[in-house]
């Protein structure tokens, strides 16, 4: 079974994408399943690391937090760009020692940090587990360290580790 369907979630989403891009008809379903089977075999030949999800139930909470933060930081960055040089704004690098080691969790964290305007992921030292981010409006360096760790890292560690 697992040889025919090595990555069931990926293959199911591929079928859905195929149907969305073409039309919802039985013929397209057959073609989509064929494409998904071929892609599954191709991906299995590459032997990628299979991510393990420990806590499915926490994912909606993470998505809600991230969406809220993206809206909030959008507003903050817009007001800084349009506000002009009324207030002295300092931007700078913050290095954060992370406990999270799971590659998938780190990938999700990079998507979160980068899609939030105002923070950008620059470097991650895998040997020492230190992350380097650049913050657009840096008021309190220690505060950002605390924010990334408590708001995202602990949740991601619970989900992936």
């Amino acid at each position, binding site marked *: 079974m697992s040889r025919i369907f090595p990555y069931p979630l990926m293959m199911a989403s591929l079928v859905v994408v195929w149907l969305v891009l073409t039309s919802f008809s039985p013929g397209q379903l057959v073609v989509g399943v064929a494409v998904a089977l071929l892609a599954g075999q191709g991906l299995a030949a590459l032997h990628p690391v299979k991510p393990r999800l420990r806590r499915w139930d926490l994912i909606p909470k993470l998505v809600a937090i991230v969406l809220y933060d993206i809206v909030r930081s*959008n507003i903050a960055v817009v007001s800084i760009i349009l506000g002009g040089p009324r207030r002295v704004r300092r931007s700078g690098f913050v290095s954060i020692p992370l406990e999270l080691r799971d590659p998938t969790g780190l990938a999700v964290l990079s998507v979160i940090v980068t*899609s939030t305007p105002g923070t950008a*992921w620059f470097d991650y030292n895998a040997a020492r587990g230190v992350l380097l981010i650049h913050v657009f409006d840096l008021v309190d360096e220690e505060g950002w360290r605390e924010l990334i760790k408590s708001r995202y890292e602990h949740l991601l560690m619970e989900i992936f580790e």
Partner: protein
Amino acid sequence: MSHAADLPPGVAVVVAFFVVLGAGLTLVGSFGFYRLRSFYDRIHAPTLGTSWGTAAIVMASMILFSALQSRLVVHEILIGIFVTVTTPVTLMLLGRAALYRDRAERNPDVPAMDPPKGSLVASREDDGEPAAAVAQPDVSGP
């Protein structure tokens, strides 16, 4: 736009709101990208366009086509997912390239290779090694 003639006004208002919001955010992002002074500041500005700018326009397009064809049209969401997944990759690679170039030139505005243990870099620089050898980027990340 005669194809939208018999659209309910409520739907039209929602679509108009989202399309103007998305385009406005993208414009502000590009304006900031043009105006800000350093590269590390500028890298933040276009994320306005790739986060809520894209999301709002994709949402407007989905609502409009769903209302016009009287069925759920969701294929635009693929663009939203694609942009969300790919933007971190491009910005990370570009940021790392910029950091690497600045470190190789010993630009004082960027942190050295090992920010918490700066003594290591300093002692190696004292040995007279070229900066490029010291500032090798760490490529073993995810």
